[in-house]
């Protein structure tokens, strides 16, 4: 098992009248190099689950596994683990505290105790990955950036760790269309070209659906569906009952299928949809 959990249960504030069970008996595993999705409505336990994966939260019961080994409590081990598994929180730009973009991105490598020349290389590398290297942002104040740029810089601030696994909690929240598009281009590149294992949580299926290889569906702290993306997405009715809609393009393809045309319904991008519909039109020509 590369990364996953075994019978993970988490209770917030156990032993008090405020105790709430956030996760209940969750077991799953993702392979190296995957693009994995964790979907579920707000309050379903996505953030809690994600924060277990790099040891920020400790299981009340059960195990979190990375590379076949259970994540323990040893501080040094956890420190090393967090250099391999990068976690981008929800609205990560709210963590900004530095006066320049450079310092913000340099925070993580400096914490690793790297020499300043190496830190500089890491910052440049991270800026290049997010595609903002040419804009001369390094000396700007992070609060002066646009919302989309802020989000990318916040992700760069985690990429500067050089992680092998990148986990993002609701990365598209409060982004406009351009911001979302840029973000998914970045994630695709990181996953396909840099070989990063990418795990993202979301409460609605959008661009992420096309990229996903594995999917977990959470509801009220329980794992209700899991498996390869095409298997989970083929259960359209079950997803619907959970309050989760497939991406609009996919819904349209299902609509066409239900009208009696034989089209492939596992289509998640406009390009694929256009190809499928073109095929259909050509086939039906007398």
């Amino acid at each position: 098992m590369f990364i996953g959990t075994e019978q993970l249960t988490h209770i917030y504030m156990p032993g008090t009248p405020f105790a709430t069970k956030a996760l209940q008996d969750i077991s799953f595993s993702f392979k190296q190099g995957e693009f994995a999705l964790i979907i579920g409505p707000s309050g379903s336990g996505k953030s809690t689950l994600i924060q277990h994966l790099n040891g920020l939260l400790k299981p009340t019961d059960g195990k979190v596994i990375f590379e076949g080994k259970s994540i323990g409590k040893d501080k040094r081990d956890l420190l090393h683990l967090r250099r391999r598994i990068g976690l981008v929180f929800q609205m990560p730009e709210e963590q900004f505290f530095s006066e320049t973009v450079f310092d913000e991105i340099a925070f993580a490598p400096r914490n690793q105790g790297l020499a300043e020349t190496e830190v500089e290389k890491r910052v440049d590398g991270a800026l290049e990955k997010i595609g903002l290297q040419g804009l001369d942002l390094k000396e700007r104040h992070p609060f002066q950036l646009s919302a989309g740029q802020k989000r990318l810089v916040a992700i760069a601030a985690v990429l500067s760790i050089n992680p092998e696994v990148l986990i993002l909690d609701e990365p598209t929240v409060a982004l406009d269309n351009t911001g979302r598009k840029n973000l998914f281009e970045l994630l695709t590149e990181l996953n396909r070209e840099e070989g990063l294992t990418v795990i993202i949580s979301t409460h609605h299926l959008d661009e992420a659906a096309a990229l996903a290889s594995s999917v977990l569906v959470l509801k009220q702290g329980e794992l209700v569906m899991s498996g390869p993306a095409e298997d989970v997405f083929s259960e359209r009715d079950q997803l619907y009952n959970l309050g989760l809609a497939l991406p609009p393009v996919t819904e349209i393809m299902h609509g066409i299928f239900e009208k009696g045309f034989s089209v492939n319904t596992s289509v998640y991008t406009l390009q694929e949809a256009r190809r499928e519909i073109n095929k259909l039109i050509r086939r039906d020509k007398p």
Partner: protein
Amino acid sequence: MSRSITLGQYIPGESVIHRLNPRLKILTLVLVLVLLFLLETFSGLIFALALALAIFTLAGIPFSYLLRGLRPILYIALFALVIYFFFTSGGVVLFRIGFITVESEGVEQGLFIVARLVALVLFSLLVTLTTTPLSLTHGMGFFLKPLRYFGLPTDEVAMIMTVALRFIPTLMEESQRLMRAQLARGADFETGSIFRRARSMVPLIVPLFVSAFRRADELALAMEARGFRIGAKRTRMHRDEIMFRDWAALVFVLALIVLALNINI
């Protein structure tokens, strides 16, 4: 960490004690505290302590909260005991270490003072544990009202207290989230010299301030949008009417304490 914010704070419940009118609860508490200072006998104090425990049971508050609430006075109590034990003379000499003697009068007075302290804290806890912070500030606001004649904007002060209380858990939660987020970026809040540790708080404090100011801005806008004006008269959705049972509770508790005043065995 979030457990520490429940200290001395509201525990949800449906008991009779929870439902009592906050204004009368505060009034009863003040009167009880005064009476506790008038108590002069051990037996009377023990009776008062038993009364407090009985009300705790009635309110259905777990025993652990009671102990947790008493923890802050542990050192004061120990200090008082030491002072009284060793430095008060009179009565029979119980034992002697070198030139220091422990005499019965001192032991008696020390224990009495500590018992009174415990009783004071227990009765105060009874109010804070069974009343929502919101009702508590409304209640306090009521008693502050006479200060208006001295130019103090009491309604606004009550509003400030309400807002501050409302945001304590929010900010607590936020600081924990930020702490985890910076931990994920390799931050270290625990090791190094005191200066290093103070510096390591910067990535926590700056974003916390930024969001607190943003929240304050948004809240002010939202309140103005709903017609809040400084100095305007406010009405309330929940009118906290004082009912017969509230007076009955006040009279009953005070009567028992007065009874305690007269116990002398």
